[in-house]
Structure formats: structure tokens, C-alpha cells
């Protein structure tokens, strides 16, 4: 038995390092791509949901002064004067609209009040501010004398905040009573529940429809199975929008299905199918079905038919043989398909937006509302983060009770 000299050993180690470096260089583009398109946006979204420095940058002095405020009365003259002079500066730099929007978010109706107050204070000369600033402010709008408003400003001024998560869970922070259920509006928990519910229904439907089909395909001779598999893949290759719009044409009041049923004399008046959760479920099941069939098919293909024959020759009836021998072997494919369908449908946006109407709304639609319409990106980020956390939680539960190693895509 010969031993390696130190130089030989270091040479071998060097060669190994070089190999690893080479391998790493090959995956660098992919890593960069994932970093830029996936990790960075998600990271910035998570960050945005808790980090909110705008108000603190706009009125730092007022916020510092508000720390000494008792929270019961109108803040003292000194705070009001400071705020008036900061508002004066914002008006001159045309930034009062930003502050207005932020305050409006926690105290609806204040946007125009902040802007008009800023205009009035902006008309004062800087040397008038110490003597008249506070007075002009209180006169500009009655809400400036309400402690609730100042409490809202104080909350909005926090750089690191969990308020958006409270809102996303239909909660609010009350100055005296602490965290409580939001009084005026409660939508988000309902929507999360509804979204999960719909995703579950869609997953079940996909499994019910996909399983027999995959079984049939898996037991055909290879060439015919491939031919039929193209039919499964064809819709998969068709644009999502085309498929969704096709469902609109089929389901609408005077659409294909209703006109057929009417002319066949089967129904007296058309069914309302489009713009319901029914339409969302049907269209999404159709769109997501290939995600269920493909993993099921590839797993079923790999199952040797002799297992089932062995079970039957040992005396099992067809149904118990299927349930106890065949079905457990397909579970990895079934769970992979179910997980794919479920996770994709939880975050689905386009189809519910187009065919969902009122009751086919899902959480993604309200996230889009906050991104596009109300520009409350922080709340949208908090809602999105909760959705991500929810999916991770479900995945963890799944891993715990079923086992992630059981997933098989092929």
C-alpha cells in the first residue's frame, strides 16, 4: 500500500477544486437569473411589507416631537408649529401629496384636507410660521384637532411596522384597547378562505378527471398513448388567454352551451354561468388539468403490470387489488400533481379576473387592486407575503404527513 506524498495530495485537491469551479461557472448564469428574477423581487416584496420610511422622511421633526405626546389631547403648540413648518417645506417642494396619501391610508378622507392645509400654510411667509403656523393648521381643517388623527400620523411614521400585516388579517391597532378586529371593513380573511376553498375544489376535480385518463393512457400501447398525449398537451400549448376567452364564448348567457340547451328544448331560459365561481372553477380545472395528468401518467407508466396480476393470482378481487396495490404506487404522481395544481391555483389571477365576476374573486385579484388601483404596494406586499407563508405552511404540513420525498414528477 503506497501513501500519497503531500505534493500529490495537494495536486489532487487542486484538481478537485478546479472541477468544482468549472461546474460552478456553468451554473452561474442560472443562479444569476434566479437571483434577479426570483429571489430579489420576493426579497424586496417581503422587505417592503415591513419597511416603510416615507412618512419618517417627510416629517421627521414632528414625529420626534410626537414621542412626548400623551395621546389624549391635541398635541401641544410646539408640535403643531413644527408640523406646520414641515408642511410648509413640503408644499414648497411639492411633496405634500405624498404625505397626504400616506395619512389618508390610515385616516380616510384626509388626502384633500392635507393638500388644502398645505396650500394654505404654503402661502404663509417663513417668518410667520412660528406665530401663526399652528393656528392656520387648526383652522384649515377640523380633523387636525382630533387626537385619533395624530395617533394615525404617529403610526404611519414608523419606519418598521407590522401594521400592514394587521390590515391583511382584518385587524387594527386601537390606541387604548390594543389589537382588535377591524371595525369597518373585513375582507381579507374571507378571501384567503375562499381562495383556499376554490383551490381545493379545483385540485379535487383535476384528480377526479385526470386519474382515469392517465390510467387509460398508461395502459395503452406506447405509440397510441403518445398520440393521445398530444391531445392532452395541445391545450397546454395554447395561450392561456385564448383558452379563457373560449370559456367566455361557451358559458355566456347567449353562448354556445345555453343556445344549444335552449334550442334542444332542455331548458326554458338560459343559465347564468359566466361571471360566477362556477365559471372560475370550470375554466381553471380545464387549464390546470395537464399539470395533474402528466406526473400521474409518467408514474403510472413506470408501474409494472405484473404487480396487479400477482395480487389477483393470489386471490385479490379487482377492486381491492387496485385500491391496495395499484393506487398506493401511484400516490407519488398524484401528490405531485395535486401539489402543482393547488399551488398554481392559489395564486391564479387572469382567469378569475376574466370569468369570475363577483363571487369568483380570489386573493390575487385584491392584491392586483392594491398594486394597480390604490397603489398601496405595502399592503399588497403584506398580502402576498402571507400567501407565500400560507403555501409554505401547507407544504410543511404536507411534508410532515405525506412526505415530500414521495413527490415524483416522472
Amino acid at each position, binding site marked *: 500500500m503506497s501513501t500519497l506524498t503531500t505534493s500529490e495530495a495537494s495536486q489532487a485537491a487542486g484538481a478537485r477544486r478546479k472541477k468544482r469551479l468549472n461546474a460552478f461557472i456553468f451554473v452561474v448564469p442560472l443562479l444569476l437569473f434566479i437571483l*434577479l*428574477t426570483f429571489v*430579489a*423581487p420576493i426579497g*424586496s*416584496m417581503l*422587505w*417592503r411589507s415591513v*419597511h416603510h*420610511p416615507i412618512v419618517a422622511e417627510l416629517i421627521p421633526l414632528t414625529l420626534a416631537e410626537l414621542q412626548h405626546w400623551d395621546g389624549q389631547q391635541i398635541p401641544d403648540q410646539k408640535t403643531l408649529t413644527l408640523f406646520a413648518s414641515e408642511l410648509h417645506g413640503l408644499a414648497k417642494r*411639492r*411633496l*405634500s*401629496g*405624498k404625505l*397626504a*396619501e400616506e395619512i*389618508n*391610508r390610515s385616516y*380616510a*378622507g*384626509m*388626502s*384633500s*384636507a392635507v*393638500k388644502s392645509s398645505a396650500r394654505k400654510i404654503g402661502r404663509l411667509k417663513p417668518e410667520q410660521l412660528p406665530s401663526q403656523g399652528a393656528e392656520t393648521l387648526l383652522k384649515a381643517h377640523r380633523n387636525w384637532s382630533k387626537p385619533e388623527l395624530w395617533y394615525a400620523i404617529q403610526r404611519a411614521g414608523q419606519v418598521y411596522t407590522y401594521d400592514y400585516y394587521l390590515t391583511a388579517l382584518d385587524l387594527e391597532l386601537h390606541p387604548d384597547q390594543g389589537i382588535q378586529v377591524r371595525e*369597518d*371593513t*373585513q*375582507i381579507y380573511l*374571507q*378571501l384567503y378562505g*375562499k381562495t383556499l376553498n376554490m383551490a381545493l375544489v379545483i385540485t379535487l376535480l383535476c384528480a377526479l378527471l385526470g386519474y382515469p385518463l392517465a390510467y387509460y393512457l398508461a395502459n395503452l400501447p406506447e405509440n397510441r398513448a403518445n398520440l393521445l398525449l398530444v391531445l392532452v398537451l395541445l391545450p397546454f400549448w395554447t395561450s392561456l388567454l385564448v383558452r379563457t376567452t373560449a370559456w367566455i364564448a361557451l358559458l*355566456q*348567457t*347567449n*353562448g354556445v352551451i345555453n343556445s344549444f340547451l335552449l334550442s334542444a328544448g332542455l331548458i326554458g331560459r338560459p343559465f347564468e354561468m*359566466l*361571471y360566477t365561481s362556477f365559471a372560475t372553477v370550470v375554466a381553471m380545472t380545464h387549464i390546470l388539468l395537464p399539470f395533474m395528468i402528466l406526473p400521474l401518467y409518467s408514474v403510472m407508466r413506470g408501474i409494472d403490470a405484473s404487480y396487479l396480476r400477482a395480487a389477483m393470482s393470489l386471490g385479490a378481487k379487482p377492486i381491492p387489488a387496485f385500491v391496495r396495490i395499484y393506487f398506493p404506487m401511484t400516490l407519488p404522481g398524484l401528490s405531485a400533481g395535486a401539489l402543482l395544481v393547488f399551488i398554481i391555483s392559489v395564486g391564479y389571477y387572469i382567469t378569475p*379576473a*376574466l370569468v369570475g*365576476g*363577483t*363571487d369568483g*374573486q380570489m386573493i390575487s385579484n*385584491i392584491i392586483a*387592486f392594491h*398594486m*394597480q*388601483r*390604490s*397603489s*398601496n404596494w405595502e399592503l399588497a406586499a403584506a398580502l402576498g407575503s402571507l400567501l407565500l407563508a400560507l403555501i409554505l405552511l401547507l407544504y410543511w404540513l404536507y411534508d410532515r404527513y405525506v412526505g415530500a420525498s414521495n413527490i415524483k414528477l416522472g
Partner: protein
Amino acid sequence: MARSLTTGFSAFALSAALAMTSFGAHAAESLTVVSWGGAYGAAQKNHMIDPFQKDTGVKVLFEDYSGGVAEMKAQVESGNIQWDVVDLEVIDLERACSEGLLETIPHDILPAGADGTPAADDFIPEALASECAVGNIVWSVVFAYNEKTIGGTKASSIGDFFDTQKIPGKRAMRKRPQVNMEWALLADGVAPAEVYEVLATAEGQARAFAKLDTLKNDIVWFDSWSQAPQLLNDGGAVLVQSANGRFYDAIRQEGKPFVIVWDGHVYDLDAWAVLKGSPKKDLAFKFIAYVTESKPLAGMSDVAYGPTRKSSAPMMDPAAAPHLPTAHLDKGIQAGSDFWADYGESLGEKFNEWLLK
């Protein structure tokens, strides 16, 4: 430093998608103009974009969007400006302007009207109310019915829209609180002048939702104005809400038997604005001054949107005059841009909650 790095980074991530769509848009003399597409976009191309390109030799990249300030916010925050000129609804304008997303436009760049009236007197006052924009058209949200599907009783007032006894059948509305809340109060008997005052109170909002409740099972919701004429055409709804120009275009171009009901219409302006930090600010101002001259504005009557210059009136097709919102101002109310800046978000949430009930 760390903070600016992360904001820069997140802004980068947000605008990456935008950047990809319009790569290379900034060749030498070119200008990116963004508007609403459809029949309105076609009229703008015809009367504004094409003549401007021809007269100045500047290449205009004319793109569509669907409203809202989100895309502008993403561009300005990231400093990656892709759009130069944008056509905004006044509801969004108020917000975009005060948040510093738009350049201030010196109104003295605007030339006098075709009849020699100085711009300040020629424009209707609302068109120059904002320092960030120049008003382009007056348009209106109305509802219409189809002669073929309405049946014996025709709709004539906003009350009929909410009266399913008188006119049975589905109503199609855009899925948002704007205009719908106003209509609910008008139909409930609130005086047009007091609508926004009432809607600013909790009781007023409850009253509007209660009125909408009476209609809830009969509403078909849609997300874009372009879906509306379709719904009216295929019988998806009996009474359909949309922008007046969408109906007018369907009537004029496709000969549809639609009838517009003007009672309770909510009119608003669209305005041209320049994105803050646009590298072609001066060219953008030149564009705006050019397209808001009397003649291009008169061309907007092709889609029944009223011009914002008085001197455009003699240049318009007289046949279009009775279909312009400006001919029906007494029957309508002006959309409250201040009100929606204040209550857009909170009513948006309440509206979504109401939808889920």
C-alpha cells in the same frame, strides 16, 4: 446607503418587466406616448399622432395602458422613465400630480385658438385646472340599452337603471366603486350637487350600498370598458354602463341599435401629462401644445368625446354634436377627483367587502 440600495433594487425589479417591453424605444428623435387604445386611441392616432409625426419628423411610439398610476409610480421611483407623455383620467391625475409623478406644464406654451382667442380663455377652466396637465377631452360614463332586447318599456332615467320591476334583466357595471356609488345615490333621490357630500359620510356610504344591494343579483360585472358594448350586443345584460364613446363608436361604425341614456351621467376630463424626469421633456411639451390645438381636439368628436377648447366647436362634424357629453352637462355630474383621491382606497376595500357578502 443601505436603504437607497434596497429601494433602488426593488424599483429595479419592479420596472424590469416594463423595461423589457420597450427596449430601444429611445432612438434619436422619438417620443413615447401612452393612451387608452380602442376607438379613442384610433381617433388620437388619426388626428394627433400622425399629423404631429408628419409635421415635425419626430417618431411617436404610441402605446396603450389601462389607467391607474402604478406603472408611472414604478417608472419614476426607479428613475427608469419609459413613457414620456401619458393620457390620464382626472381621477388619477390629481393623485399622480400631488405625488410628484408628473412634470409641471407651463400653460403659456399653449398656442391661441384657431379663432385667435388666447389659450387661457379658449380652454374650458377645468382643462387647465391642474398645473401638471392639459385637458384633452370631456368624456362621460353613461348607460345604454339595445333596442332589440329592451322590450316594451324603455329606460329614460338613472332611476330606471335601479328599477328591476320596470325593466327586468341584468345590468352590467364596471367592477369598482367609482360612478356606481354616485349612481346609487342619484337613483335614491340625492340631489346631484350633494352626491359627494353625502358619500363622504358613513351614513351616505351605507345608503349607497343599500341601494346597490337591491340590484346585486342582477348585476354583471366587467373590468374594462371594451367588454361593455359586447355585453349589450349579445344580450348578456339589458342595461350596460360604459364610456359614451364606446357606445357611440358601436352605433356609428357597426350600426348597432344602441340608445344612450344621459340622465345621471358622470363626466370627467382626460388630460395629457408628462412623466417626471422624462429625458424628452421639451419635446413632450411641444407635443402637448401641438395636439391640444383647436383642430386636433375637434377630431376627438369622431368618438363623441367633447373638445376642451371652445374654438374647436365650429370645426367639428355637426352630426356628432348632440352625442357629446358637453351637450348634456345639465343632466350629469362631474366626477369628483378630490373625493376619489380621499376615499378611493377605503371605498375600494368596502366595495370589495360588499361584493363578497
